[in-house]
């Protein structure tokens, strides 16, 4: 197994490009919020390796991702364009996930296998389990990934979903992006144990804690969990330890509850920098190429911003549609 898990250089490079694009896009959206153009934003900065590394282990468009608000990189790597994503934030016509009805990044794109319906914490996890149950009943080898934060792991819905999935050996991966905080509440006030993964044993499934800033570790762990799920061995809980570099959302002021030193310390494991260093060291990337990657990301995001800003606001009459199925 070990050898075919070795990530090929090409894949690593592709993931790096995705990460650069995501970071650039994320920074831009944050700025749009500060300019009063996007009502709210939950940044993915520091979470990207967890998101991109796990999606890379999936069959895109076949497997299904039940994501949460911080999963910008999941959306992007599954196929949404930066312009489509920005339209969600600035609430413009042509926003593909919800038609600008729902919170940014929320809605669904069935073709890409991405669902992000509610931002009531943890409520999507039982639904992910339902999707996994369906895959099993239909004898499809589809894998479902439920993404959620450490905070969500305290919700009843999360416990109930994990127990249910383990009982029925469902093809679902519980992917916890542990950034150590639920808004301001640190891990120590959320749980008496030091990790989420350890709970898996109590449900009867494997639980693996990994460095979520190490994209190779994320990828390899997810590949194994996907293999288990696809072959009927049941669910896996992966806990990826990530960092949240920005406040909880654009409405939050994190200086109230954490020090700037803490953030500086966390930046030492910036997943983007770690991957870049690895690529440079292994000569998969040179400085010139790196510069090009950054420049083209910027160009893509510039164009996307322009397109989104120039798009019209949605038609008011449309908004009464789809309250009920037609």
């Amino acid at each position, binding site marked *: 197994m070990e050898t075919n898990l070795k990530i090929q250089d090409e894949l690593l490079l592709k993931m790096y490009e995705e990460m650069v694009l995501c970071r650039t896009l994320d920074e831009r959206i944050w700025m749009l919020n500060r300019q009063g153009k996007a009502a709210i934003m939950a940044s993915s900065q520091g979470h990207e390796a967890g998101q991109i590394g796990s999606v890379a282990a999936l069959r895109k468009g076949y497997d299904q991702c039940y994501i949460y608000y911080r999963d910008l990189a999941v959306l992007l790597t599954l196929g949404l364009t930066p312009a489509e994503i920005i339209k969600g934030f600035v609430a413009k016509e042509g926003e593909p996930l919800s038609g600008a009805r729902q919170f940014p990044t929320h809605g669904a794109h069935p073709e890409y296998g991405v669902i992000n319906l509610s931002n009531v914490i943890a409520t999507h996890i039982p639904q992910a389990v339902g999707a996994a149950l369906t895959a099993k009943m239909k004898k499809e080898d589809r894998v479902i990934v439920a993404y959620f934060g450490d905070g969500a792991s305290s919700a009843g819905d999360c416990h109930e979903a994990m127990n249910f999935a383990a009982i029925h050996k469902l093809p679902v991966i519980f992917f916890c992006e542990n950034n150590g905080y639920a808004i301001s*509440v640190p891990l120590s006030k*959320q749980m008496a144990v030091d990790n989420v993964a350890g709970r898996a044993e109590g449900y009867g499934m494997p639980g693996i804690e990994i460095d979520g800033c190490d994209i190779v570790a994320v990828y390899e762990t997810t590949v194994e969990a996907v293999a288990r799920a696809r072959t009927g061995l049941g669910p896996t809980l992966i806990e990826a330890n990530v960092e949240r570099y920005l406040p909880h959302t654009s409405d939050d002021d994190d200086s109230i509850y954490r020090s700037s030193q803490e953030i500086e310390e966390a930046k030492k494991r910036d997943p983007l920098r770690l991957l870049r260093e690895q690529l440079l060291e292994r000569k998969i990337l040179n400085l010139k190429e790196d510069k090009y990657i950054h420049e083209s990301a910027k160009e893509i995001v510039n164009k996307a911003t322009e397109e989104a800003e120039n798009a019209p606001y949605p038609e008011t009459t449309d908004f009464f549609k789809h309250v009920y199925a037609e």
Partner: protein
Amino acid sequence: MAEMLLRDAMSKALREALDEDDRSFLMGEDIGAYGGAYAVTKGFLEKYGEERVRDTPISESVFVGAGVGSAIIGMRPIVEVMTINFTLVAMDQIINHAAKLSYMSNGQMQVPLIIRTVTGGGGQLAATHSQSFENWFASVPGLRVVVPATPYDALGMFRSCRKNNNPIIFAEHALLYRVRGEVPEEYYEIPLGKARIAKPGTDVTLVAYSGMVRVAEEAAAKLGEDNISSEVIDLRCLSPLDLDTVIESVKKTNRVAIVEETWKTGGFSGTIASDIQEAAFDELDGPVIRINGPDVPAPYARNIEQLMIPSSDWVVKSVKYNFGL
């Protein structure tokens, strides 16, 4: 008299509870170091400590349920559910338990639990973060529902809540925290179940509560420009409901419109409208008008969201059209 933000009036109310009653304590998400999602408990952790200002995990069912459990055996907990939308994951504790324990135990148990929560929309937070469920709670026997619209009322009614032995939903509107109003230094209380005449008038009665009181007041000012005199009634509580004040007003104006933020179907305005026509049918010059948000989940897009929440122009138009004024 000092001017105060509604946020500060709530802080004062909570500080009084902690200072004066050692059976009171707070639980909720981000209420400690953070000082509350709406900054109501800023500085509380330092002053009262972790035992009495307890940050919780994202586990509404347990901290509401624990509040019930603790209230039954003699404490007077105050829990904060970050927004009313998240009461849904604690609904069994509230509806099946908090509301019914007194009755189900033949009066042997009481649940003096205050559930503070933030209600309302208008902040571009979309379908699952912009709702108002006060009307649902008000339909449940055993619960009290308090919906202040001013800093003065928020403090005064909270004081009454602390003396009340029922479970109470105390719903603070997100857009009212920055509203400023006079709050006297001297101690006062506002009894639960006593509506307030926010503005006297003679031609039409506008009934509202929570965030819609301001909308009704604005509408009254606009109607005034056309020499239409409105009486604005702020219900203050949905349970107990002060119907008498509404009926007295209707006897004077013979016309009534009820303004409510939530969906029209099942809205509390329906209950009030029905109560009015039962009690004062002969006093009415026309049907009771209900101005509610349309039956649509709250959209994110600003241009649409604004159309979904009753505005003063909407009230003015509706009053003029329906009453031929």
